[in-house]
């Protein structure tokens, strides 16, 4: 009886995995089908012939390489900058005592509730006045203010023993040196996690780049794909190829570093 239960469990596990992966699998499969083959009844799951013409068209006719570059550039910049300033702030909240520290931190955490859409219009008008619409900085700048990052780093940094810091101080290290040579290396795991979160979040971000980038040479991948999908409603296979190009980098990245990513989620959700 127990064996049957186990068999059922495995069956369910596999069934759920099939449901989870099927759309992604179909996406890849359709992207290498010749034009028109995917629009058939019954829907073909495997291509009868393989072709890479859609990928070719993406890179030549539709200049996908440009969008890929934009996404990559923006994701890396936002990650780099926000890591820098959030680690400094997280360190300050964890290891420095100053008046109003805890209240300020609580307010910051509470403000995470405010949905980002509230800020979009005024931010747009503000960046417009600064002449930053349709520039990389227009996406980078709002990405710098990341309360979640400060939260994560502060939690982690609190576990660094004060004695280590005291010892460094007695050796004559300046505050910045302590931050640079002691805190940052010790925070490596959480920094990596945060970097992955930020990179993926920026890569997948859709609404803000949609609003800010008016020139198509500045589009990021998600915006380009949405555009493509509204434009080429009939070209299923081309759409799928575009979707693959958007999803593949983050999936590969995730597969490589999933331990960090997943530990980050649990770290962020544990009650203090």
């Amino acid at each position, binding site marked *: 009886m127990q064996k049957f239960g186990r068999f059922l469990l495995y069956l369910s596990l596999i069934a759920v995995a099939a449901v989870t992966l099927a759309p992604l699998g179909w996406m890849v499969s359709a992207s290498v089908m010749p034009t028109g083959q995917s629009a058939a009844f019954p829907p073909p799951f495997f291509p009868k012939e393989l072709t890479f013409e859609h990928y070719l068209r993406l890179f030549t006719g539709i200049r996908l390489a440009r969008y890929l570059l934009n996404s990559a550039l923006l994701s890396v910049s936002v990650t*780099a900058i926000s890591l820098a300033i959030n680690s400094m702030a997280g360190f300050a909240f964890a290891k420095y005592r100053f008046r109003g520290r805890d209240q300020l931190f609580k307010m910051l955490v509470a403000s995470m509730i405010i949905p980002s859409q509230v800020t979009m219009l005024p931010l747009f*008008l503000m960046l417009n006045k600064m002449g930053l619409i349709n*520039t*990389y900085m227009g996406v980078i700048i709002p990405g710098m203010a990341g309360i979640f990052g400060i939260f994560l780093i502060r939690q982690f940094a609190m576990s660094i023993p004060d004695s280590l810091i005291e010892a460094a101080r007695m050796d004559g290290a300046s505050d910045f040196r302590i931050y640079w040579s002691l805190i940052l290396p010790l925070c490596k795991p959480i920094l*990596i996690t945060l970097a992955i979160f930020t990179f993926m979040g920026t890569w997948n971000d859709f609404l803000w780049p949609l609003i800010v980038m008016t020139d*198509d*040479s500045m589009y990021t991948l998600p915006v380009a794909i949405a555009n493509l999908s*509204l434009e080429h409603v009939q070209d299923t296979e081309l759409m799928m190829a575009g979707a693959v190009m958007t999803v593949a980098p983050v999936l590969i*990245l995730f597969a*490589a570093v999933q331990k960090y990513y997943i530990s980050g989620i649990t770290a962020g959700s544990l009650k203090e």
Partner: protein
Amino acid sequence: MQRISGRTFVKACVDWRGVLPAVAVLLAVSVPSCGPRDAGSVVTFWAFGVEGEHVAKLMPEFERRNPGITVRVQVIPWNAAHEKLLTAFAGRSLPDVWQLGNTWIPEFTILNAIEDLGPWISRSRTLRASGYFPGIWDTNVMDTVLFGIPWYVDTRVLFYRSDLLAGVGYVNPPRSWDEWFDVCARLKQAHPEQYGIFHSTNNEWAPPVIMGLQEHSPLLKDQDTRGDFSGPEFVRATRAFDRFFKNNWAPVKTTQIVNVFQAFAEGYFAMYITGPWNIGEFSRRLPDSLRGRWMTAPLPGPDGAIGLSTAGGSSLVMFRHSKHKEEVWKLIEFLSEPAQQLEFYRLTGNLPARVDAWRDSSLAANRYAAAFFTQLNHVVATPKVPEWEQIAQKAREYIELITMDQYTVEEGLAALDREVDIILEKRRWLVRGE
């Protein structure tokens, strides 16, 4: 703890704390992406949808005739065009020249974004108002000022299955509303499972509004600051429009028809009010057996004369603050040449705005285009207010609900007017100080 493979993360290999900020600064400094610095001027041109894709093919000829000018075409899907243009205006990144649906011209004149083309046209040797359909030209004029040059024209006519209509005694298409209702009734009797006509009330505002225009409803009143949809003319028109649904001559569940071409070919409906792009689409997508069994005709009017239709289409407009106005005008003149208009028609199926282009054999002999030519001489503009697009969508929503029996005609139109009045509130304050 697992080691990361030295993949994308340079941090793992090199002294990552130094690389991070360096990368950040480097990227932050390479601020707006600069296009190639060409010798000569670069004119940016935004075009939408299918037009955008094909107009790029005309550019090499223009650039050949005008060495020193490069045209950069950007294609934007129609769904996103409206917001893209407004966002670009707010972001001060409008192109030098762009395609503008003529019902959107009022908005951009309010924004002071487009150039007064009067001086340009008076200096032009090739362009004149008389070269265009009067109803179409009028849509480009706001308070006697000319803001756009018509590029291609669009209007709605009746597409119909000539064989099905002949089968119930209509060798000629219906010419009046009475005949129109009559042919629908006959079709229903002959084919109870099918429909006489298809009105796509879930995404087209034109058919019911057109009937309103045919009844000479002004659509808006009080200097276009209040809705007049509850006025007697529009009520009459909506009642007539609703007859199609109440008598089951048109399907109420419009989303059932997933593929219009297939449904038309199968005779699921025999008539359809649509635009010129479907001449090409129908020819391409209908099976060969349908050849010669469908036709176009001007719209039937309430009392037997040709009914009015919408003066649609796109114009070419020039950005008021463009740094390449001379070049833009050259481009506009180029695209307005009858030869270029014809070439564009061949590529896209969009009908030329230049009347001269129609004399060419490819159009003059086109049986389907003939109906459009006639109709274009009977078109009228919708109210020239910036809020029109929003109002039209609301009208469509309420009329759709009327056809679904969610409102009576009077209730629905009264509710529509209430909403339209709210939409127009700002305009009312500006124009009449109320």
